[in-house]
């Protein structure tokens, strides 16, 4: 799965520009699902038949990025963020556009670094004039953070672990599941980072009996970090709540039960801030029972998001068993 993760995280796919990721995932899963289509918002919906009930899984394909809003006479690009991104996390980083153009983040002189804001920053694509810049980049083009995948042993680090590792886990589960207890709707969603937008319309179209999002979550295991009882390497989490939802208690118990019956290590997750696709799924139509399995991840929404490979392997196991276990409410 490491090789798949490397390809997924290094693919280009800021919110609204998920085409490359979708193509990659489509070719990866086509032999393991019964049908596959793309909806009006670009969600990739793969169906694997197996039962009476419909279960929807959502892993989002999009990553955070930046969008060009202005090109000045010297060819510097002004930009705005696509999804939640701190200006400080961009210092020293590079970005890459869909056509391969590489840029460096720079910033205006500020009296104190805490005064740094996105509107004081720009992207330098190594040109001298507006005309030269326009030959490479247009207003409205998006760029992703440029950073390669590194395998540190148990730990893996890259940009876009959020949420490509969840895409990888869902892909692997689709490959490994033997006797699905449901009609599985594996949805690789779009525009999560700008407001859970893909999952909302996908859930409306599918109208599942049960929805489970797979996303990354924060951890409390770094020096003087946040207080949170989630650590890398202690297994995937079963979420209790985040800012977007209180997971349906029956779904949470069901997920915990599957983990316990199959001896899969997991952690309970209470996330103070942050949302997931499950928040949108839960409030669709007249309400859909929803839960979340998360992969613990350090340094979320930076160029170097870190996960533990063992959590991913256990995540695949848990997800596969969920697919094979009927949900009785």
């Amino acid at each position, binding site marked *: 799965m490491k090789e798949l993760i490397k390809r997924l995280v290094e693919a280009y796919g800021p*919110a*609204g520009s998920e085409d490359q990721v979708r193509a990659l995932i489509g070719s990866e899963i086509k032999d393991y699902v019964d049908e596959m289509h793309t*909806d*009006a*918002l670009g*969600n990739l919906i793969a169906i694997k038949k197996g039962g009476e009930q419909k279960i929807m899984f959502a892993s989002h394909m999009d990553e955070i990025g930046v*969008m060009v*809003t*202005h090109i*000045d006479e010297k060819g510097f690009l*002004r930009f*705005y963020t*696509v999804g939640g991104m701190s200006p400080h996390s961009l210092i020293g980083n590079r970005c890459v556009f869909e056509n391969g153009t590489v840029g460096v983040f720079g910033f205006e002189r500020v009296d104190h670094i805490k005064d740094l804001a996105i*509107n004081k920053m720009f992207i330098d694509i190594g040109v001298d004039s507006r005309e030269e810049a326009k030959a490479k980049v247009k*207003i*409205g083009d998006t760029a992703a953070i440029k950073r390669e995948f590194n395998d540190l042993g148990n730990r893996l680090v890259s940009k876009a672990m959020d949420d490509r590792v969840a895409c990888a886990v869902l892909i692997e589960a689709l490959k490994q599941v033997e006797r699905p207890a449901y009609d599985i709707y594996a949805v690789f969603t779009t*525009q999560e980072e*700008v*407001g859970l*937008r*893909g999952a*909302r*319309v*996908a859930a*409306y*179209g599918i109208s599942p009996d049960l929805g489970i999002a797979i996303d990354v979550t924060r951890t409390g295991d770094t020096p003087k970090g946040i207080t949170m009882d989630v650590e890398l390497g202690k297994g995937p989490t079963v979420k209790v709540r985040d800012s977007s939802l209180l997971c349906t208690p029956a779904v949470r118990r069901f997920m915990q039960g599957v983990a316990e019956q199959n001896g899969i290590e997991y952690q309970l997750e209470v996330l103070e801030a942050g949302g997931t696709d499950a928040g949108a799924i839960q409030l669709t139509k007249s309400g859909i029972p929803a839960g979340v399995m998360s992969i613990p991840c350090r340094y979320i929404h930076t160029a170097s998001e870190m996960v533990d490979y063992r959590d991913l392997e256990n995540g695949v196991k848990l997800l596969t068993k969920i697919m094979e276990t009927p949900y009785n409410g």
Partner: protein
Amino acid sequence: MLLKKLSEAFGPSGFEHEVREVLKEELKDHVKEWKYDALGNLIAVKQAETGPKVMLAAHMDECGLMISSIDSAGLLHFHKVGGLDDRVLVSKPVLIGKKRVPGVIGAKAIHLQRPEERTQVIAHRSLFIDIGATSKEEAQSMVSVGDYVVFATTFGEFGEGMVKGKSFDDRAGCTVLAEVLKEEYSMPVFGAFTVQEEIGLRGAGVAAYAVEPDLAIVLEGTTCSDVPDAEAQMYCTNIGNGPAITIMDASVITNKKMVAELIRLAEENNIPYQFKRSITGGSDAGRINQTKSGIPVVVVSVPCRYIHSPVSAMKISDLEYTTQLVKLFLRSIEGGFRV
């Protein structure tokens, strides 16, 4: 002139009746079927058998005020309806309620203000509306709590092809949509004049839910800040540079293929165009895009300076180019369009 009538119509969010009447009258020879929904959206229906179902949307409502209480001196206190900046309120003439009772927004005189008050923006809660009444009873005979208030701005032309007036956001979009609806198309076209955009994109979502179009085009009067002291990267749009196409705002990422088609048509037909270069602020497009199982959407805007204030300024050629571009887009997709 339709834009003048629309600009001067009284229509804050939730009270769009006058705007609706102006539009129905303007389109009576061109639209045979109208739909009205529970929120007050007015939807022009042009049925056809073939081609994609298109919804166009422009919001009828404007930012305004609402009377919250009448004090013993006959002065009116108010709340804001929509995003009005407190700084644009003081000393402005206004009209109140259906009867358009004239009033003036007043404040404590400067010599009565404490030194620190003189350096601060006067908050709208400290402002009041004076309608010339001298007692609560007299004021109550003229207006009532809950009455809406709009700025008493008359429409006018100035400079070279420029116009000024209130509420170009989004009566400019309503004007474009009305002009577009005066033509016939071979595909089903639904023209939705929506309500309550300024207080949370409320009308557009339910309209889209009912219409369930294959694709949607939102027409807006959008912000334009190409003025002194603003840096070029903060302009958002430039007046006179043609329709502004949105790639992304706070509520939506627009459909890439629809954007590409608009650009192709503009370039082939020598229509100037620009991108909206600010990401903040939402639009009806956000709600439409998120309706049911998802609706592809684009936003085309007429640049307007000083929106959300008593008077905005706009270039007529921008309005005309926007109308022309939207019509061309509709013609180009009559035979079908894969989004």
